[in-house]
């Protein structure tokens, strides 16, 4: 049961982990690299709290052997956070109180980022459709959907160079 070294890109930098066979990406991130923003809610693919982006597509890190992302580009909430201040999604989640316990927030944010990458101006239906795999037990989702709408507008305005 020899360990192997797996290299991948994490938030713009090359990382290597030495893993037992079939260690999940979730475990490699949290237990080996200390990137604990990616949460562990079920390890069944049922809650979305471990959502990360692999080559900009949302995936569940609890279902992904880290060997499968060798050479791929992985993005977690840590790398979404800018050096100064907050990403528009983070700011919108904060302003809208789009969390209570906060445990779903990293997964929600990564999913929302993927949505806005695909669709910069999603309507409410697009947002709720995108979020169906991410469970929040506290908020009832309303403030999360509103935060994503606000962030979409802010990012759109930012791109067009309009005052925010």
């Amino acid at each position, binding site marked *: 049961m020899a360990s192997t070294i797996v290299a991948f890109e994490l938030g713009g930098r090359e990382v290597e982990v030495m893993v037992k066979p079939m260690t999940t990406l979730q475990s490699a991130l949290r237990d080996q690299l200390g990137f604990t*923003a990616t949460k562990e809610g079920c390890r069944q693919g049922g809650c979305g709290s471990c959502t990360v982006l692999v080559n900009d597509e949302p995936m569940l890190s609890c279902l992904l052997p880290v060997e499968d992302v060798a050479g791929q580009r992985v993005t977690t909430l*840590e790398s979404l956070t800018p050096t100064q201040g*907050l990403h528009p999604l983070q700011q919108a*989640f*904060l302003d809208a109180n789009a969390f209570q316990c*906060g*445990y779903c927030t990293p997964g929600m944010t990564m999913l929302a980022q993927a949505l806005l990458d695909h669709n910069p101006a999603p309507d409410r239906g697009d947002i709720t459709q995108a979020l169906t795999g991410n*469970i929040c*037990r506290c908020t009832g989702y309303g403030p999360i959907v509103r935060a994503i709408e606000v962030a979409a507008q802010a990012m759109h305005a930012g791109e067009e160079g309009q005052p925010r």
Partner: protein
Amino acid sequence: MSPDLNVVGNSVGRSDGIGHVTGRTRYTADRSFPGMLHLKMVRSPLHHARIRGIDLSAAERVPGFVRALTARDVPHNCYTILGLIGVEPEEEFVLAEDRVRFKGEAIVAIVAETEAAALEAVSKVQLDLEELPAVFDVEEALEPGAPIVTHWGNNTFMFEGHPCRRVRLGDVEQAFQQADYIVEGVYNTSPIEHAPLETTGCIAVPEANGRYTVYTNTQALYFSLDNTAIILQVPGSQLHFVGGTVGGGFGGKVDVIVEPIATLAAMKTNRPVRYTYSRAEEMQVSSTRSAWRIYVKDGVTRDGHIIARKVTSYADSGAYSRQTPYALTKHAANAAGPYAIPNVAIDAYCVYTNRQPTSAMRGFGVTMASFALEVQMDKIAEKVGADPWTIRFINAYHDGDMKPHRKLVEDATLIETMQAAATRVGHELPDVFRSMTSAPRDAGHDGGRS
């Protein structure tokens, strides 16, 4: 509004908000310690069984196995959840001794170098179980000859020597004779799992000074500490509990179940030990809100006044009572509803079955009574041919009314709440209800509340 108010009337940012949106909030499972071991539980595959033997030999051979803990290793092998607030008897074991009473009950704790090794060792523990008849229905559990779940010979929690919590006001049987209508209903609710997104868990860490630091997502930090100290028979000063960051609780994380065994494992191995529920454990082993069956019989006059209410409730406590007797007492105090009823009889039973134990969940005991009684109120309205608003306004209690458990009503707001609700949904109330208040009945029309 006073001009020196800083918070009231303002939106105040959450102190933990930045941590939550950047993912830097540290939840229990986000912590890691050098040499940390992982604890996984061998659980009963049967609903009810006698334990004839436990064979650990194959588990011990799994690479990474460190040690196993059984009932013999636990200094005081009883949960003290209710004992801490003076409710007896102790009836739940930390690790099962001779019998398991629900599917999923903890029998052997396995401590291993990795979670994978712990899971593999768990799968290799051989249990020799003799299956016993099980009971899953509250009323069947009270029938003669039912399988007995408890160790004291019947399937009810005993309230001061009685098999149920009893409340009596007036004489319901006589009032039923005088009533124009008898309206009866039976109401069932399902168990509900809190399903917090973060599962229950803790990490116990031995410190150089001989103390143990326990990082936990309990909702009841000092409850957890006291419970652990008693079970492990150590002074509370030897334990340092660190909590406060909880990834969803809703009442489900007041079970204080994981800390004692994790701390014991840390003591036995002198290494940090992590014990976190899997999602399946959270769903199948952690307490749920109880399932209830509630019988309501009301005596009602032709004009819709309820003159007698008899409620017989059964809370399915599951195999152990945890905080359900407490919930049941709250239930009994509220089982007549927010209504002024002169004759009331309430019998509320906390029944043991071979189901998953039950405990606290938001408004426990009262929420199910409200469900039953409000459906019942609609049935009464239908029976007497009045609209549901009228039935509630004319029966609503007022300040100063006597509740069935001999407490005077204070700060009643049912009438005002219904008035506000009517406004919100655009329902036009008749003047008589629009001008009603919850003020004491003898205090005149507006009761001096204005």
